[in-house]
């Protein structure tokens, strides 16, 4: 729908979002939260961002396991700092009070995205997911070793069974968290966000499976291969892995990664990117490997690198034999927005959070620090930060990251607009 930025249209906006969320299958609570977030955003736009009015477009869409409302508005005057997880409101500060609605909005949804390209409208996407129950613990029927298997996508009724099998045979460290929510997995497969292949015997017995999902525009992350009680000499794991690679080989995806390799994972199909330290709640740690492979021949690309990251980036590109034109870039006194914005993606199962820059700002270092403090306060020890080398504006975060003790651990080729550097905060700092 398109409306003018005028509070008189508020009931229309809220009714539109609520009805859409209901139709898309959100529960009452989630629908109301998405509606509340939309209400607060629209009010903020009317009162603060575009007080003289102007066109606001709102598009609601169904993502299968989530619903989203996208606000598009022709403005540059949107102070996004309220979308920081760390934002607090001072009742004495008028600017803070103006941002109150956005704070409520950001806390009411599961995820948000901000996009603004030169000369285009600002797009704010609010995403609310359905709530899925944890499954009742059932030990799935034992699978006997299979003499012969073939690969095929699992049928809908097999998906939940597969996730139970994987969860019962494997440690959570090598599972996608989605596998613990079979209903969500099924919805994500239906929505095209997850895919899978099963190795099936002649009578439909399931001997193994592999799952994969898209991560951004260019990358697929695979989980597995999971093999259930099969002969260690069987070829099932390699067939599953090759089946997964074959399934995405002629798609838009450029690379495939695996950051939770199972013991059956075939390393000769992939390249080692690097490692992360995985800290358990008791402070002990183990090493987790990150693997990747390109799905096509690399024709090179350009990356924007802060001088303090230059040596790491050059060393890694040389090791991975990735041709890159490296352009050194750093803030050079140009005016930056006052407040930066970071997104925080929590994986509570793995005790991990990944911070990502959403908006540059003069307070980049303080903002990272505030986020680290808040996350550490929640006893999350694995704090990662992902910087997209395809977006020059993100170099503003590099000095703060390094000064706060984040270490660059590896480069994920083509994982964002360009390659993405993954940083990890050392255990002591976290």
């Amino acid at each position, binding site marked *: 729908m398109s409306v003018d930025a005028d509070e008189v249209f508020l009931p229309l906006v809220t009714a539109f979002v609520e009805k859409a969320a209901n139709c898309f299958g959100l529960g009452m609570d989630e629908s109301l939260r998405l509606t509340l977030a939309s209400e607060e955003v629209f009010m903020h736009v009317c009162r603060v961002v575009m007080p003289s009015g102007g066109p606001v477009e709102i598009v609601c869409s169904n993502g299968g396991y989530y619903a989203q409302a996208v606000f598009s508005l022709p403005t540059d005057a949107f102070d996004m700092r309220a979308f920081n997880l760390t934002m607090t409101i001072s009742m004495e500060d008028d600017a803070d009070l103006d941002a109150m609605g956005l704070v409520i909005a950001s806390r009411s949804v599961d995820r948000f995205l901000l996009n603004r390209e030169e000369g285009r409208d600002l797009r704010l996407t609010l995403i609310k997911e359905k709530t899925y129950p944890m499954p009742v613990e059932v030990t799935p029927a034992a699978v006997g070793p299979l003499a012969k298997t073939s690969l095929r996508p699992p049928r809908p009724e097999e998906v939940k069974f597969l996730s139970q099998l994987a969860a019962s045979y494997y440690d959570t460290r090598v599972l996608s968290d989605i596998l613990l929510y079979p209903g969500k997995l099924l919805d994500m497969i239906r929505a095209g966000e997850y895919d899978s292949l099963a190795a099936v015997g002649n009578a439909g017995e399931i001997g193994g499976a592999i799952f994969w999902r898209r991560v951004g525009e260019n990358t697929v992350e695979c989980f597995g291969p999971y093999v259930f009680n099969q002969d260690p000499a069987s070829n099932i794991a390699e067939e599953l892995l090759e089946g997964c*690679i074959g399934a995405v080989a002629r798609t838009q995806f450029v690379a495939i990664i695996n950051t939770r390799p199972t013991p059956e994972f075939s390393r000769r199909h992939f*390249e080692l990117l690097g490692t992360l330290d995985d800290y358990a709640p008791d402070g002990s740690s183990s090493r987790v490997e990150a693997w990747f*492979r390109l799905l096509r021949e690399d024709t090179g690309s350009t990356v924007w690198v802060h001088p303090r990251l230059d040596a790491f980036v050059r060393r890694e590109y040389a090791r991975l034999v990735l*041709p890159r034109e490296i352009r050194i870039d750093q803030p050079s006194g140009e005016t930056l927005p006052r407040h930066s914005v970071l997104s925080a993606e929590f994986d509570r199962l793995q005790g991990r959070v990944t911070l990502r820059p959403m908006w540059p700002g003069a307070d980049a270092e303080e903002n990272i620090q505030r986020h680290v403090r808040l996350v550490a306060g929640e006893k999350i020890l694995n704090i990662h930060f992902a910087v997209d080398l395809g977006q020059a504006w993100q170099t503003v975060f590099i000095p703060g990251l390094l000064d706060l003790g984040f270490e660059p651990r590896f480069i994920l080729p083509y994982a964002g607009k360009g390659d993405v550097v993954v940083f990890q905060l050392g255990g002591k700092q976290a």
Partner: protein
Amino acid sequence: MTNAVPLEKLVPDYIKSFEAYTPSKPDDVLKKLYGCSKLYRLNNNENPLGPPEAARRAIRAFPPAQASIYPSGDAYHLRCKLADMFGTHPDQFLVGNGANEVIAFVIKAFCRQGDNIITADKTFAVYEWVAQFSGIETRLVPLVDYGFDPEGMIEKIDERTKLLFVCNPNNPTGNWWSQRTLRTFLDRIDGQSIVVVDEAYREFVESADFPDSMALIGNYPNLVVFRTFSKMYGLAGLRIGYLAGSREVVDIVRRTCVVYSVNALAQVGAFSALDDKEHIPRTCESVRAGKRFLLKELDLMGLPFVHGEGNFVMARLPMNDSLAYRKMMTRGVMVRSMTGFRFPNWIRITISHQEALEAFAEALHGILRERGEF
């Protein structure tokens, strides 16, 4: 501030999910990117001997002033010559800007949304691509022993199956159907769908029982044969290929074809190439010798390989092929990584001239040694 083009509304879903093919960058750019001073191209199955002498002469004699004149819109003289060669009628040929263009013509002529085509899962990708960006379903049949599976293809047919694509010999495995296999397949299809046999590498074939598909068109009016001047005839840079079929089928395909898409230089080059009687035996001899050398080298390195008819060999590496590609590039050798053909960890090597094959062997030896694999 301007609004973005509403691509979400304007673009069909099958185009949104389709990724445009990214061709290799030009040699000078690649050499700079990968820091090599020389680049041997063993990736596109080009003929290292280049075009036949007769074609070279015709190209050299092409008057530059002629560039201002439109070419024959339907490659009239070339079609007449092909008809003479194969004892058929000129209207049984349709010439395109490379064989890729005639693939698009055929799919456009016979398919609409809801229809499907059938081909193999591990073969030349363009049949699948063109179908996909045209919104047509592709049904993929796994190869059996590296060859097309006629039975598997037949099982996939339904009332909306319009086209069956068989790459013969198959790129990249070199496996091929004999005359008997093709005839049996055509008999089973019983004229109910169009059978396209892509013979891009036909001129390299030395096996006696390879099908004479041009002759089979007389008995099977639903058979369409693709040929190209890009491989054996060394005219890849000019982009010219053709299809042959029964007059009634070609008449339908012609309705969808783009006239004037084949430039004049390509037409004269192809016309003259057909006159050169020494070029094919000379190339075949060179391919035989190159293949002998290459297979011996792959054997020495302990690498499994697959080959058949055609000027290429496919080898399996103990590492991922996209990494091998990049490492080979830094050593000035370009091969085709096979992930895109759904053969992860395989590479395809063009049988080129001796110097290039030696450079390839040396580079691969070096890479495997580095990894402690050799």
